[in-house]
């Protein structure tokens, strides 16, 4: 497991402390980077700024702890789990910890945030170090007052004790502690002593969420701002020839209509008027080249798969030879459509561009990169650009891209006003940065009833699988193994979508192995386990999945799901996958209702190392599984003459509550550093369901969405 910890990582360089004027101690720190030497920690809580530090812990003189967390919340729970790491090592009761994100209703500090996309995995070490350092400083202060050796003191839930039985609360020594040197050589707790890590904690924003308080980007308002709605080219490949804004401008409340590039912004007194203004615009569009269609994509990707132009991402042994010598070659092709992200909160952003500064506020996963791009676009000094993050109504990858922030910055500059840009659902779905349509061809050579070769080919739009994905299972398990990729450059914008590439690759591969087991007439679990034996002891550094951990989740899934022991009429499908550093196995239970397959239950076994917040972790797991099933079943998105054919939820189908299985989660107990959970349970879900449908109906699915490709033979829901 790689830790983000440079050799120069030292507490002195990333933590500074100060005594607060109003009482209490402030620990100012920087995660993932050293503080500037001249950075002075604030002495007044109203002066917190996130330029010099990226997080703060306040310990008040009544012992209450406030963590000022700058981390963006997409819904994956890091705003709860990351402070838990601090609180654990600080040794305070979680009930006495208050987490503040500089939310919209907090006017007493400004935020300039970097490093928003850091996960729990990266924070595991530095966050605990910070908590432990603060705890040691409080102990040192108490020991000095008592005149005892700090090593004879202990802490328990915010109380320091010495060997004589004297006790002091943290709040009583904060003043002295704040002025001590930041100690080095801090020992972290043994995981078996964890009290907060591993215990259930509620989402820290839950009260605000369930009472409707302003939290999200769309809720953000400032005095004097106007609302903007933008008309964008309806088709990818269109440019704006001309437009007529006469009718739009005649609508009372429409302030202005501004063209920028191929887009036209309508500025108005409120969102509804801006939307009406946009509808009243008349535009003529043109295009230089032929516009793209789904049928065209289908042919292009098929041709790529059948062609010879590939980049080889990994090649072990000699696949060609293995195939030439095979008794039998099994070849299957798997196909997926483009997918929009459809965050429930449509894209939106606020900008105020003035001669002095550029201020941006909104839901974004990449504030630093977005600030840089806005500075470039507006030709401004990056020092003048600030990005504040709000809570995000979903991300799924879409909010990695700051296109909407660039748009609103440009509009505000042209309008010379603070502007709030709002996407309608149609804008959001029509101007997406989609999961690209992908096809996989998987071939296996079989000799003497053994798999001797495995060849995976990927044909995708605009980009291909990256990083260590070509080294995921079954890399290392099959002697002759090759991964080849090719892509087609499209005008349709594509990008990361929850569990990029693996969201569909897992379906293809885990369906393929299920079918191979049938062809080889071996037990489908045994086939997987036998392959994993061959990976054990492999020293290839690129192979980061653990055969032992994958084996374990598979075995526990067999046990917990009652694999092979279900009552009559329940059909099971199996899938196991490693991605995002987490090992997962899933079993889907399908029944036939009026001959239609219905997923009743998914048993999900997860090895994500230490589980920081089981309550939040299970939420991610349940969501990931159901999201995976929903998109595999229903997600469909096509283009005609460059134009997306679905614009809203009347035709684009997302899974709903009456279509969901119960997700039963089991964790593998572990003392290994935690890994991510926002993504890894999604990829295996599609294959688990497809394999169960095969068991139930005898129909093998190769294409998503299932509903479309099963319709003729066995309608789904």
């Amino acid at each position: 497991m790689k830790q983000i910890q440079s050799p120069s990582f030292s507490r002195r360089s990333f933590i500074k402390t100060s005594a607060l004027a109003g009482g209490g101690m402030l620990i100012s720190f920087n995660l993932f980077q050293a503080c500037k030497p001249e950075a002075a920690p604030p002495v007044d809580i109203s002066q917190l700024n996130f330029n010099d530090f990226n997080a703060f812990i306040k310990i008040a003189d009544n012992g209450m702890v406030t963590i000022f967390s700058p981390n963006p919340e997409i819904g994956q729970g890091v705003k709860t789990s990351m402070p838990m790491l601090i609180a654990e090592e600080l040794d305070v009761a979680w009930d006495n910890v208050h987490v503040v994100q500089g939310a919209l209703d907090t006017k007493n500090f400004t935020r300039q945030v970097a490093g928003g996309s850091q996960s729990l995995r990266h924070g595991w070490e530095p966050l605990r170090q910070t908590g432990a350092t603060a705890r040691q400083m409080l102990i040192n202060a108490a020991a000095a007052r008592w005149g005892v050796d700090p090593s004879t003191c202990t802490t328990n839930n915010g109380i320091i004790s010495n060997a004589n039985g004297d006790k002091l609360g943290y709040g009583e020594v904060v003043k002295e502690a704040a002025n001590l040197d930041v100690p080095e050589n801090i020992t972290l707790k043994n995981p078996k002593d964890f009290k907060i890590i591993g215990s259930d904690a509620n989402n820290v924003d839950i009260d605000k969420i369930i009472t409707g308080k302003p939290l999200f980007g769309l809720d953000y308002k400032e005095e004097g701002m106007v609302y903007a709605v933008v008309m964008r080219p309806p088709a990818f490949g269109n440019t704006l020839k001309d437009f007529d804004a006469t009718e739009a401008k005649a609508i009372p409340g429409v302030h202005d209509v501004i063209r920028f590039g191929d887009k036209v912004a309508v500025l108005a007194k409120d969102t509804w008027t801006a939307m009406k203004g946009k509808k009243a615009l008349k535009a003529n569009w043109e295009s230089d080249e032929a516009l793209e269609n789904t049928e065209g994509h289908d042919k292009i990707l098929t041709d790529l798969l059948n062609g010879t132009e590939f980049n080889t991402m990994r090649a072990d042994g000699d696949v060609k030879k293995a195939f030439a010598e095979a008794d039998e070659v099994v070849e299957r092709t798997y196909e997926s459509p483009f997918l929009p992200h459809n965050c429930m909160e449509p894209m939106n952003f606020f900008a105020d561009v003035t001669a002095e500064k550029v201020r941006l506020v909104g839901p974004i996963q990449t504030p630093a990169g977005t600030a840089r791009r806005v500075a470039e676009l507006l030709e401004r000094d990056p020092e003048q650009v600030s990005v504040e993050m709000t809570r995000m109504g979903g991300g799924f990858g879409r909010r990695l891209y700051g296109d909407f922030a660039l748009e609103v910055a440009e509009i505000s500059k042209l309008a010379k006003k603070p502007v709030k840009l709002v996407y309608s659902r149609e804008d959001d779905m029509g101007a997406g940065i989609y999961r690209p349509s992908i096809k996989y061809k998987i071939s296996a050579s079989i000799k003497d009833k053994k798999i001797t070769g495995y060849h995976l080919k990927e044909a995708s739009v605009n980009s291909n699988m990256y990083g260590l994905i070509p080294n995921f299972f079954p890399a290392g398990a099959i002697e002759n193994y090759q991964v080849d990729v090719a892509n087609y450059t499209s005008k349709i914008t594509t990008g990361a979508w929850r569990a990029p590439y693996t969201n569909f690759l897992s379906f293809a591969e885990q369906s393929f192995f299920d079918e191979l087991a049938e062809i080889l007439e071996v037990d489908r679990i045994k086939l997987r386990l036998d392959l994993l034996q061959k990976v054990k002891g492999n020293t290839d550094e690129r192979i980061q999945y653990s055969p032992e951990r994958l084996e374990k989740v598979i075995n526990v899934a067999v046990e917990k799901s009652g694999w092979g022991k279900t009552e009559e009429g329940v059909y099971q499908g199996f899938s196991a996958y490693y991605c995002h550093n987490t090992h997962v196995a899933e079993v889907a239970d399908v029944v036939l209702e009026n001959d239609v397959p219905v997923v009743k239950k998914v048993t999900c076994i997860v090895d994500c190392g230490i589980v920081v917040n089981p309550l939040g972790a299970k939420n991610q797991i349940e969501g990931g599984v159901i999201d995976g099933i929903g998109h595999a079943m229903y997600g469909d998105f096509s283009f005609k003459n460059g134009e997306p054919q679905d614009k809203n939820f009347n035709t684009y189908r997302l899974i709903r509550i009456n279509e969901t299985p119960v997700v039963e989660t089991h964790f593998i107990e572990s003392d290994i550093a935690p890994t991510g959970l926002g993504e890894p349970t999604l990829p295996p879900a599609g294959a688990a369901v497809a394999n169960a449908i095969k068991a139930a109906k005898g129909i093998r699915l190769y294409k998503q969405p299932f509903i479309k490709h099963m319709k003729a033979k066995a309608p789904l829901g």
Partner: protein
Amino acid sequence: MPVYNLKINGKSHTVEADQDTPLLWVLRDHLDMVGTKFGCGIGQCGACTIHIDGSATRSCLLQVSNVGDMEITTIEGVSEDASHPIQQAWKEVDVPQCGYCQAGQIMSATAFLSQNSNPTKSEIRDAMSGNICRCASYNRIERAVELAASKMS
């Protein structure tokens, strides 16, 4: 521009708005009550659900001129301190992930339970099927509605 007197969460509010303005945008942009969310604008996702005289209604499709003197209840009116049994159930089960759709979910659940205080699982699933949760916190929504029903009975 026409002026409307709206009864929202037991209080009277006067707003000036175009007659075709959906109540959703009156609440959000004119009255600063942003708990009611915009999701689709066509009544498909349920994020904007409010109560009109106690019935769950999509505020994105209801024009302000059609509200008249009907009683409007929004998420802000369920309880200010999260003390309503449904909010308590939401908290106990720790339902939200991103949280954006949850106000609408709670409003649908509240209206449903006021008509059916002892629902079956399948009635809950049917009643809540108009509300999309993109994070798919559906298992917990189902459990929270069940829990709320037991708290309220």
